[in-house]
């Protein structure tokens, strides 16, 4: 090992992460080279002095307040609807299925509520064409949920969402 190689390796050796074979090679060089030995001693002393300073620690009882402030700041962070939706959709299995269901439901409802939309007979017959087998497999209670949702809206608005209109005489 040359002096130049030894001095490059010294940095690794002195600051603590060296493979055993490199450490042995440096030690062998230092035994025969007083100049590099002196350099190593100076570096070691400097690193020891620097490492002797204790790790800074926050005052006692700092972290609970820190967590509360952080939570408060995060709650004030503007979060776009898209970001919320994206996080919800990133669930590995339910995400894509839920997204499909939401899109289908929005489409069905918007179609039915559109002025001049053709009257429909019953909820199930209206929704059924939009529900695929895979949707039913992933969300077995989907049709039930749609019915429940409709009955809930019906009680609030007094008029059922999918009620058929009387025929014009």
């Amino acid at each position, binding site marked *: 090992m040359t002096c130049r190689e030894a001095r490059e390796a010294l940095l690794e050796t002195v*600051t603590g992460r060296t493979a055993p074979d490199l450490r042995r090679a440096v030690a062998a060089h230092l035994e025969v080279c007083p100049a590099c030995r002196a350099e190593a001693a100076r570096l070691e002393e400097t690193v020891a*002095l620097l490492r*002797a*300073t204790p*790790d*800074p620690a926050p005052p006692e009882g700092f972290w609970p307040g*820190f967590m509360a402030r952080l939570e408060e700041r995060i709650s004030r962070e503007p979060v776009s609807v898209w970001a919320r939706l*994206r996080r919800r959709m990133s669930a590995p299995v339910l995400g894509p299925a839920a997204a499909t269901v939401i899109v289908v439901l929005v489409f069905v409802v918007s179609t039915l509520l559109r002025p001049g939309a053709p009257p429909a007979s019953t909820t199930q017959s209206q929704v059924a064409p939009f529900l695929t087998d895979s949707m039913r497999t992933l969300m077995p209670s989907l049709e039930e949920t749609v019915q429940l949702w409709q009955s809930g809206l019906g009680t609030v608005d007094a008029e059922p969402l999918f009620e058929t209109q009387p025929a014009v005489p």
Partner: protein
Amino acid sequence: MDQEDAALVAAFKRGEESAFTALVIKYRETVYRIARRMVANHEDGADVTQEVFIRVHRALPRFDGRSQLRTWLYRITVNLCLDFQERRNRHSWVELEEVVQEAPAETGPVARVEAQAVRQAVAQAVESLPARQRAMVTLRLYQDLPYGEIAKICGCSEGTVKATMFAALRKLRGLLAEEWSEERR
């Protein structure tokens, strides 16, 4: 990526906010220690630490896991500390009194005075380093990170980190030697 970190990131991306809290608890002390060694006082260190986690919360949904979460987190910390210094360049880098007060009490009065003198000299010497050198010294000597990871955090090559560290240690050695020789006079 560390398996635990990967699981927490995945859970956060699924919308589990508690996963973020777990990440903060895991890394807050290290982030604070890095920040505290780089900024003037506890208040500034606490502010930087808070800002780090706000940034992490914003950016975590886009974190692709190509690097270690730890590396990414420390990179944000170092960059924020460098920005902080830019904005507060009139301020003393580290308040020496605070560094000395943070030290544990030594046994005898003579030993205590000597130890305080050493810490003050070291703090003064480190204070005189340029910000990036100080960041590298902090990450290497106090966080014990490998040179390769420090290079990723600081956005430079491993060779640059080693050369910078060598220069920093030489400078520190010179400053400390000066300090001792002045004291002995």
